[in-house]
Structure formats: C-alpha cells, structure tokens
C-alpha cells in the first residue's frame, strides 16, 4: 500500500514569536494543511500524531495540550517523543496497518520560550556519568565529535565554512528562513571560536514554527489530488546515547537511510536521489550526514562541497531551503521543515528556490545532542 502526502501547512519560521502562543502556531499550521488537503479534520482524519518532548515544552505531560487546536478532540491522538520524521514513520505505520486512512502529523518549536537552553540539554544526559562534568555548555559535546570527525576525514576550516556560506545564501531565497545572509568564507572564519574547533556561526540558532502534514492511503490520495507526493520510504534508528560508547560517525543516519532506501527501492542513492535536506544544526553535521546517507563517498564530501557539487545549481543540491543554519534549529520540528521543503520542491511550489529536476528527495533529521538517534524519509512523485 502506498502512502501519500496530500496536504502540508506550516507557520513561521521566526527567530522569536513573543506575540504568539504555541497553540496559535500549531493552529495556523494545521489550518493551512487541512485547507491544502481539502479535508475537515473532525470528519475525515483517523489519527493525529504530535511530536514533542515534555521538557522542551515546559510541561510534565505535554500530550494533554494537543487535541483542541488540531481539531482532534475525542479522536485517536498521541504523542511521539521524537522528531517530526518519527511522527511521519508512525503515520506511515498507521496507514499501512489499516488503523487509519488519513493521518495527520504535527511538530512545532517554541524554542524562544526556553530560557536556559543548555541546562535543558544537560537534563538529557546521564545524571551520574555526564551531567556533572564541569560547567561546560553541552555544545562542547558536538565540538568533541566535530574534532574527531574533521581529524579523521582531514577536513579543513574552509571546507566547514563553505557549508555555512552555502546554506546562509540559500536561505536568502527562502521567505520563511530568518537566518539567511550574504555570508562569505571570510565572515565564517572571522566568527568567534566559541567551542574549539567550532565557530559561533557554525551553530544553528534557534527558531519558532510548526509543520503539519496530512497523509492518506493511495485510494483517498487519488480522490483528493491529481498529483500526490508519495512517502516512499521511512527509516529510523538509534544508537546508545552514552558518549563513552557511541560511535560518533552518524550511524543513526546511515542505518535509518538503509531502511528507508530499501523501502523506496533505492539501490544507489548518490545517483537516484535528486536533492536532499539534511540536518545541519552544526555545520560539520551536514558533511557527516551527506556521507551517511550515501550521497557521496567518505573523504570526498568536503572537497565536493567546496567545488559547489551540493549548491543550489550543483549536481546534488543539499539544503536548498537554507537548512538549519538558515532556517534555525526547530527542535522536534527540524525534520518537519526538511520534509516540508522536499514536498514543496517535488510539487514545484518552492518559489524562487525551485529546483529544475526534483523527482526524488530525501529528508533527514537527527535528535540533537546528546543523542545518536535519527530518522530519514524518502519522497517521490
């Protein structure tokens, strides 16, 4: 059974939204998605899925606050503690297991409400082994991973800088990307070295927003739209979240991609995938994830990056939306923004940043520090 994306809606993305409640952000995205799909949530939807983590939200049981603004009251509604792409995988399973014919996935970020971001991340670390180590901001753990990765693959500062330059400039064409800018290699290299070897500009700043998708099985999708976008494959995978035993080489992305590609019937990703949106919440992660997704060979990716292979008009455009460096760190909605961009590109609705060849696209997201978990989704027309 094939599963299609029949409606997408989003709200944002903004650096700060003091004027909006997160319920309003969710409502706006949901209404747009329902309009786009042409459905009535109260009548037509069989399952609602929200992707949220309690402590990002500042609630003990966030699940309580979900149904009303989505039109999900007294309907099968649940929370997945994971990225939007995990929600997408859940919706896929709901539809293929016959539990639902139409399913809705929602994820949002109200990161601007979080006053002590680093302290919240620390709460995700093992309370005995890790949380007490110094007063370091948890970004240091990403910096450690970066140090290992760039040494292993002989990646230079300029190569990492080219990721930032590409994404910030891509974001200038995206009206919903708050952190775009005309940035050059020099600007990146002049950015302060905050977590050696990581510079400030290589860390995605946080943003607010919400993404809602409506998915349906093949029969209903064909009634709703003439040109549905198909969710061809999903994959998710976890490795231990302990720093002392995790592999530090984005195995989560590689294994999740393997699962998703198998489902989508993709054997040679580098040839068959037209473009991808990967998690770049730290600039080096983009290179790491491109390799893990099998879109280029290990040790070659950084060189190709500098050569413009992954540019908007390159061979295999990556993060045309501006990625997280341009759009911002959307917490659990990160994968949502990625999937949204892929769907808009496949539909030909990406405006100024529309790619000429877009038939198969990949969205990938990581669950952020301190985890080694992530998910991948493959879309096609």
């Amino acid at each position, binding site marked *: 059974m094939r599963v299609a994306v029949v409606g997408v809606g989003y709200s944002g993305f903004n650096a700060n939204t003091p004027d909006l409640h997160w319920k309003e952000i969710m409502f706006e995205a949901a209404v747009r998605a329902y309009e786009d799909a042409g459905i009535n949530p109260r009548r037509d939807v069989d399952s609602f899925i929200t992707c949220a983590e309690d402590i990002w939200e*500042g609630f003990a049981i966030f*699940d*309580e606050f979900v149904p009303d603004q989505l039109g999900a009251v007294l309907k099968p509604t649940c929370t*997945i*503690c994971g990225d939007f792409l995990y929600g997408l995988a859940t919706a896929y399973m709901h539809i*293929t297991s016959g539990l639902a014919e139409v399913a809705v996935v929602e994820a949002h970020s109200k990161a601007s409400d979080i006053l002590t971001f680093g302290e919240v991340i620390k709460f*995700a670390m093992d309370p005995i082994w890790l949380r007490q180590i110094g007063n370091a901001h948890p970004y240091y753990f990403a910096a450690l991973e970066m140090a290992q990765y760039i040494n292993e693959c002989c990646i230079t500062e300029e190569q990492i800088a080219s990721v930032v330059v590409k994404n910030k400039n891509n974001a200038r064409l995206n009206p919903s990307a708050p952190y775009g800018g005309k940035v050059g290699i020099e600007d990146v290299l002049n950015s302060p070295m905050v977590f050696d070897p990581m510079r400030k500009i290589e860390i995605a700043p946080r943003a607010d927003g919400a993404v809602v998708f409506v998915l349906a099985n093949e029969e209903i999708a064909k009634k*709703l739209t003439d040109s549905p976008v198909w969710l061809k494959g999903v994959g*998710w995978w976890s490795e231990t979240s302990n720093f002392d035993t995790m592999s530090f080489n984005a195995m989560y992305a590689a294994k999740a991609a393997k699962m998703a590609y198998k489902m989508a019937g993709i054997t040679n990703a580098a040839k068959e995938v037209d473009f991808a949106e990967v998690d770049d919440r730290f600039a080096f992660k983009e290179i790491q994830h491109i390799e893990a997704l099998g879109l280029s060979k290990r040790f070659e990716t950084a060189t190709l990056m500098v050569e413009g292979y992954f540019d908007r008009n390159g061979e295999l455009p990556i993060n045309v939306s501006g990625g997280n460096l341009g759009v911002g760190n959307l917490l659990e909605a990160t994968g949502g923004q990625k999937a949204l961009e892929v769907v808009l590109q496949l539909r030909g609705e990406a405006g100024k940043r529309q790619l000429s060849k877009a038939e198969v696209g990949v969205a990938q997201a990581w669950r952020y520090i301190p985890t080694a978990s992530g998910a991948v989704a493959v879309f096609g027309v």
Partner: protein
Amino acid sequence: MEVEKIKGLKFAKKQDVAIVGAGMTTWKRRLNETGKELSYIAVKQALEEAGLTIDDIEMVVMGSAPDTFDGLHMKGEYLLDGSGGSDRPYMRVFVGGGTGVFAPIAGYWHVASGLADVCLVVCEEKMSSCHPHPQSGFKGIWDPILERPLTPNLIWIFALEMRRYMHVHNIKHEDIALVSVKNKRNALDHPCAQVAEKITVEDVLNSEPMALPVRRLDVSPPSDGAAALIMVAPHIARQLTDEPVWVDGVGWALDTTMWTNRDLYFPRYVAEAAKMAYKMAHITDPKKQIDVAEPYDPFDYKELHHMEGLGLARKGEAPILTKEGVTARDGDLPTCPSGGLLGVGNPIAATMGVKACELYWQLAYRAGKRQVAKEVTTGVCQAWGDLMQVGTVMVMSNKR
C-alpha cells in the same frame, strides 16, 4: 472536496499480531536500580518467556510517562541502552498515564504494518527519584495561565470526579471501597505486588483522608518498575509457541484539554477508544463477549468508571456488579484479577505489567495462582491518563 471512505479498507492490516512473551519487575521503591536496569530486568524475563534473544528483536517501542519523575529530558534516549533499543529502530510513545496500554498498541502497529516481524515493547517508570513526592512531578501538567495559579494537585481533581460519579448514580463510598478490598486481596497472589493486603471496607472508610471523598486506601501508591512484552508476526509466533495470544483490536482517543468543560461522571474518551477497538475485534456485545477485563484502577472508583466506559456495565451499574461478586476472580466477569494498580502498584507507564501483560498471561493460561476460574478466550485491557482525558484499549484473544 469530501473524503469518501473506502469500504472494507479500514483495519485491513498487512499481518496479524501475536503476543508470545511478557515480563515485569517487582514494583516498589527501588532506589538501588536505575531506570535502565529496571528495563533490562523486564526485557530479560520477556525474552526468556518467548524463547528469544535480544538479537532476534527487530524494533523496540518504549513507553514512559512524564520526564519530570526521573528528572531526565528525552527520557526515551536515556533508557534505550537498558531496554535493548541500541542499534535498532527505537521509538518512544507517550500519552501520559494511558501509555501502559498505548505502548503495546504502538507495538501492534509496528508489526501489523509489516515493518517489523518481532517487536519488543518496554515500559519503565521510576517515580521515587522525584522529591519530595512524585506528586510534585504533576505540578507541571496544568495549564500555566488558567490552572497553575490555583496550585492544584491530582488528588483534588479525582476527588471532584469521584464525587460527581457518586452523585449522578447515587453511589455510596462503601460500594466503591469494595473495589479496593477486592484488588488488594487479588494482589496477594502477585509476586510483584507492592501493597497487597487483606483489608475490609471499614479500613478503607477509616483511612486517612486525602481530599474527600478520596481516602488513602482509595488510592494506588507511587512505584518504581518496568514491564516488557514481545509482539510478533504470525509466522514467528508459530515457530515459538502453539498457543500465542492474538491482538484483536486496538483503540485510543484523546478528549479536550479543558477538563473543566466536561461532565466527569462518564469517561467518553474510554468509550470512544473502546468503540474503535471493539469494531476492529468484531465485538458487538462486550458484556457477553469479554471473558476477563483489566480496566485501569489507580483509584477504586476509576475501575467502576472505566468498566462503564468499556461497556462492561451500564452507566451506574458497575458498583452493583462488584457488590454481587461478578468482578471477583471466580466471578462471571473477572476484573483486575492481577490485583491492578491498587494492589500491585502504580508505576505510571509500567502498569502495562498488570494490564496488557496480565491479560496476555490470563489468556495464555500462564497466570499461575492468579488464573481466573472460568474459561477465557477474549479479554480487554485499558489504561487512562493525561488530565482525565485519554483512553487506550486493547482487545486480545487466544483464538483466531
């Protein structure tokens, strides 16, 4: 454009889902073990019962309720080592207290969709690390503008609900207390029980008042514990056992956040969830077709409330059935034969151990001293959570 539902497509799953093993830890205050260790103990038991090793597991579903109890952000990621989630697809699902039955529902869709043939479902909760009392973890469940300024706690709103239920159906506290007496006595046969004891109705009525009408013995205790369940595709089940237990139906529903706008005397959310599960399981008359039930009983009135929501009793009839002994272990409709949350304990999500796991053990005739007297083929388990808001229901059967 209006969506026209395709007839017959609904509930057309890729493959059937069977349960072949379950495990749970003793529930008590367990200061010596971390949540990872608790999960490990439960998983090990379940694997042994099923005759599998961790390498046979394809995907893992984790159920764990509020992160605030453990003081951990992304608790699912923290628990993944102990629960066998490392190096495989691992997903945590969450519907507050309803997670105890929702996690196996998630296990169901992992297998029914064909993505996994062997799925491990693990539920863990460690409440004792929350100071001064796990109740303080519930401070964060209220609406920050409308409710938090009133500094409410959970016992209060349950007192409101219990009073409303007693008022509408003209039920006496004595009749409700019978549930506590029954479940705590049933729990005497459960090796994992935390508060099993022989008590009388007078003991309940004379126990310490919490928020009247709720008294100490009307309430389940906070506990630490874990439970695990193994769900497999039919071709795997056939290799492992001659008598697997099949999942016939699942359902869940979430009511509005505004609990103050609802009439609390009847759990609509449980009724909706049951409707979905019964439809899927082809159950038209639950009173006749259900042989054994494990409704969620964190408070004694809640068991009655949920029996009515599940259609096992007419509205207001559940206390009468209890009084007549219908719900006793040797009655016509044994209800909470495990001892439930009132007797065995209430580690929020890990209550899967006395709900879904217990139902599996009953239907597989593996419940030992707790085995109900009558012959059983079909049973229902249910959990409830959030702000008196979510109902999760699973119907199982030992016949196909």
